[in-house]
């Protein structure tokens, strides 16, 4: 059996069939499914990425949508029909203001260290706040910052994107405006008179911004 022959041995199913397959897999799953996972589960030679394009079109304007979450895809009900779902609505734990702000700071400034969150909010971040967000799987540890002390950073998760219906972190509301206004900059205090005693305040790294939205 030569290599060239092998391909023709596994002929990919017709695109209509592939679309049905992607539909069935996404339908059956609560979690978003990556193209890689789709590919692994579908017959050899299938092209789930193309099938997704057709499927997305098919569900446009329907009661259920095909949505992209990071590099994965999922089926979700249309946002305008939420009013029908009182029965399904899950009471989410009420987040404190501190938790909501911390979440927003992680989302807009990621990857961000605890010291940076504290600097932005002007108060120390309580352990419980970060724990709660991690437990909800909305934030997770990112890479360590390559500055003295190598502090850990926080980034938002795919669950976060999924929950807020975001394709990726770049779709955060008002992100562009905030960035062009310089409000996402790491601007050091002149002379560092205020936080000079802040030991774990790491150097504002020039890579900080580049690292933004790395994943």
């Amino acid at each position, binding site marked *: 059996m030569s290599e060239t022959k092998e391909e023709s041995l596994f002929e990919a199913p017709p695109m209509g069939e592939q679309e049905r397959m992607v539909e069935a897999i996404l339908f059956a*799953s609560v979690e978003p499914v990556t193209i890689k996972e789709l590919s692994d589960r579908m017959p050899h030679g299938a092209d789930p990425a193309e099938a997704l394009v057709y499927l997305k079109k098919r569900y446009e304007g329907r009661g259920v949508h095909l949505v992209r979450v990071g590099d994965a895809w999922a089926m979700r009900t249309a946002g305008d029909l939420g009013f029908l779902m009182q029965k399904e609505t899950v009471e989410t734990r009420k987040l404190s203001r501190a938790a*909501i702000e911390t979440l927003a700071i992680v989302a807009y400034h990621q990857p961000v260290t605890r010291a940076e969150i504290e600097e932005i909010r*002007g108060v120390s971040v309580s352990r419980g706040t970060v724990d709660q967000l991690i437990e909800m799987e909305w934030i997770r540890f990112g890479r360590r910052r390559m500055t003295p002390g190598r502090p850990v950073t926080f980034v938002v998760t795919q669950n976060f994107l999924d929950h807020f219906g975001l394709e990726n972190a770049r779709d955060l509301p008002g992100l562009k405006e905030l960035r062009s206004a310089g409000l996402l900059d790491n601007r050091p*205090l002149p002379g560092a008179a205020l936080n000079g005693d802040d030991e774990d305040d790491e150097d504002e790294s020039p890579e900080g911004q580049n690292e933004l939205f790395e994943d």
Partner: protein
Amino acid sequence: MSEQDQTENQWTEGTVEARLAAEALIVDVDGFEGPLDLLLTLSRTQKVDLRKISILHLAEQYLVFIEQAKALRLELAADYLVMAAWLAFLKSRLLLPPDPTEDGPSGEELAAHLAFQLERLSAMREASAKLMARDQMGRDFFARGLPEDVTRVRKVTYTATLLDLMQGYARIKTKDEFRPFVMDREKVFTMEQALDRMRSLIGYAGDWSDLNSWLPEGWETDPVKRRSATAATFAASLEMVKQGQLELRQGDAFAPIQIRKKDS
């Protein structure tokens, strides 16, 4: 504290309006998340774009607030007082002409940074409000209610090579030829053997003697044999202690183990 005095003098200069605003805020002092939060709230009374805010005016408002709180004997967290001291310092910098002998950032630079911090905090507040106002899963849109489990099928295939097969067959057909492996047991001194040996010799051991001196002849030099014999002899002696035939002692960790016959 000189700064304290300065503050005291200054707050009287505050406008009536500022003092009234501060009084209103005082009631809610527990509601603030630190000095920056309080400053942001105070800045709103200026009713201007945060970028055009008068930091000097803001510093005055803050200092009035702190004095009011003190007058009411409210417990203020240390960081409020630190901020008050810093704002008093900033205010003096902003009011006085720059001193060329003094290094460090100018009053304007510090004020600009504080304005930036306030603007940034305010922007993050707005952003978090926008974020929470988005459609949320489980509230506005929903995932599949009845997911179908993906079953994981683990398929195990077994394999063997021709060599495995031949070796397997050779192993069976030549079992008798694998004598050399029995040799291994010649280097094993079993506990039963040690027990037999010690039972027959224990009568002669009236006084404490080193356990090592009980090793059988011919087992003392070869390390492999010695290890086996030592282990077996030790195990056998423990067994005999249990049966009340022997006493065992060790002076210290790693010290020689000594045994003697127990008088019954």
